[in-house]
């Protein structure tokens, strides 16, 4: 019962996911893509933890490993006191009632041949929760909750706009009354005006059903808006975690600083104080030694290229993994 005593719903420890690179006729494994390379995360009950990072940083893979849609290579995922990685496939299927997911693309994540009523009602059948008119009643209720007319049940996904489809996806995720929803870029494919509607809906539903969200996104302003705390990922690792407000006002890791400075501000009078980064994201198949960010870091020092910094608390739950923030962060873990 590790998770319950300190109020955490989910605890991820040392999560790793390596994808083998196979070469040649015998598909010999010639290396690994370290998509997720030792991630520690904790989600408190009822909070929204934002997970941000650029493409290829491992955000989505982290989400999928937590749900065991991908089998992690190493680590532990403790949900409500139960280690998910120790569960049999049957037990895991039962557990999925508690953990749901909302996907990025509202077009490809709904089966075009199923009516909305069946899409939203399917989880109720699979988990043998409701049948017949009871199920129909529940589906109608769910559709109302996400702001759709119950008559939507009889229609097909293609009859809806992107924003409405995302509402259908949310209704499906809510059907089993989960405790945790992993939102994987839920508003990235939507237009600005519709994006705001869906963000509001997610916040309202969180309050009503006391949900916990892991909110994965690359849009820093949206993440700041919806999250209580934010974790920043770079090349398979978490580099900084803090309360949303603190992170945006006082970022510590040079990567977080650069990332925040690059966001275009909708204000033509704002002066650009962008911190330029050298080069592109390195390949996760051959991450640089030491701190993975050091080849692009504007303030890197000698130790950064040799020693991997640890994610340490600089007070008030503000964690950062940087030798400059924590000069003692090279030591072995206690």
């Amino acid at each position: 019962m590790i998770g319950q005593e300190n109020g955490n719903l989910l605890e991820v420890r040392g999560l790793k996911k390596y994808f083998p690179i196979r070469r040649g006729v015998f598909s010999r494994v010639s290396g690994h893509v370290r998509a997720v390379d030792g991630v520690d995360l904790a989600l408190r009950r009822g909070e929204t933890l934002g997970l941000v990072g650029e493409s290829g940083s491992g955000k989505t893979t982290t989400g999928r490993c937590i749900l065991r849609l991908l089998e992690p290579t190493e680590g532990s995922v403790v949900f409500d006191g139960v280690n998910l990685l120790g569960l049999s496939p049957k037990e895991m299927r039962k557990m999925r009632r508690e953990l749901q997911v909302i996907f990025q693309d509202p077009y490809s994540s709904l089966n075009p041949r199923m009516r909305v009523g069946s899409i939203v009602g399917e989880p109720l059948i699979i988990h043998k929760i409701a049948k017949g008119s009871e199920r129909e009643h529940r589906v109608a209720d769910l559709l109302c909750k996400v702001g759709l007319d119950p008559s939507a049940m009889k229609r097909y996904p293609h009859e809806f706009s992107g924003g409405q489809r995302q509402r259908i996806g949310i209704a499906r995720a809510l059907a089993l009354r989960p405790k945790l929803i992993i939102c994987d870029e839920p508003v990235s494919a939507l237009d600005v005006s519709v994006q705001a509607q869906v963000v509001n809906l997610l916040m309202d539903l969180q309050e009503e059903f006391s949900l916990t969200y892991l909110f994965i996104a690359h849009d820093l302003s949206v993440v700041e808006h919806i999250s209580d705390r934010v974790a920043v990922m770079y090349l398979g690792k978490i580099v900084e975690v803090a309360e949303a407000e603190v992170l945006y006002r006082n970022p510590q890791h040079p990567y977080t600083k650069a990332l925040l400075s690059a966001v275009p501000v909708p204000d033509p009078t704002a002066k650009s104080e962008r911190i330029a980064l050298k080069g592109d994201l390195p390949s996760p198949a051959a991450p640089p030694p030491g701190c993975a960010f050091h080849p692009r870091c504007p303030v890197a020092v000698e130790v950064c290229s040799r020693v991997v910094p640890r994610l340490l608390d600089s007070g008030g739950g503000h964690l950062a993994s940087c030798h400059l923030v924590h000069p003692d962060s090279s030591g072995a873990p206690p």
Partner: protein
Amino acid sequence: METQAPLLEVDNLRVEFNTLEGRIRAVDGISFNVQEGETLGLVGESGCGKSITAMSILRLITPPGRIAAGRILYRGRDLLKVSEPEIRKVRGKEIALIFQEPVAALNPVYTVGNQIAEAIRVHNKVSKKDALIEAVRLLRLVQIPDPERRVRDYPHQMSGGMCQRVMIAMSLSCKPSLLMADEPTTALDVTIQAEILDLLKRLKDEFRLSMLLISHNLGVIAGSADRVAVMYAGRIVEEAPVREIFASPKHPYTIGLLRSVPRLGGRDRGVRRRLPAIPGNVPDPLSREPGCPFAPRCTEVMQVCRREEPQLLPLEGERKVSCFLHHPAVGEGKAVAR
């Protein structure tokens, strides 16, 4: 600025698509101009007709779409009236276009050097060898490190940001006067986006380019445009210098759009607030109601808005807006005081 003839003048452009369900007006009578050396930002949500506008300027609309009406004057010449060989001379040489998906816009089976060289040789009589030397120079210009080596790379060997730099190099190869950039950074990560926007700004000054920058991202527009035109449902609803439109938007759609964007660092004292969203959805282009297209979502809608269509009319200064709140309808008994 007003005395000089604009480089590009779009006058009452209408683009229609014939579909099985009926005729769609993707662009519904829009007019705007781009002055020499300025960047006009065209902002709007998906389906509002921004990209179709750019494609129409180069006559790249293919059936079932067609340009139904209007004039596109480039240096005073109507591009809709010139012959096919003549418009081909305009494409790339006078007006260049870069797209959202740089990886998809490049041919995967040719090296980037060959593709840039091809673009040069379409419009100039130079040898292939000279064209390749020029390609290396262009790659250096767009700040690709080690251009002598990268010129032999295939697109898949480059990152998305690098591919967009190649596209920009290619678009500049024939020294165009107008560069149209259609969501040039939408597919890129924020740090790369910032680099590309800086590059475009620098090149614009260096080559004294005019630019039509199309984006849905208000932050991108705010940082790069001199003037902004806001599109909604195939129409321009507001046009103004960039500072004015962000400081005091006039059209209810522009106001709603600016409010619905979460601001970085916009949280105070840990409070999560609801975002002021615009209710409803973009109207279905197939079943268009009479009146202002924004009326069904507008918080300040009046009776006249559902009956008559507002025109884009001048306001003070260089501003224009298409809204009855600012231009009471002709013949309307009670003008609304605001």
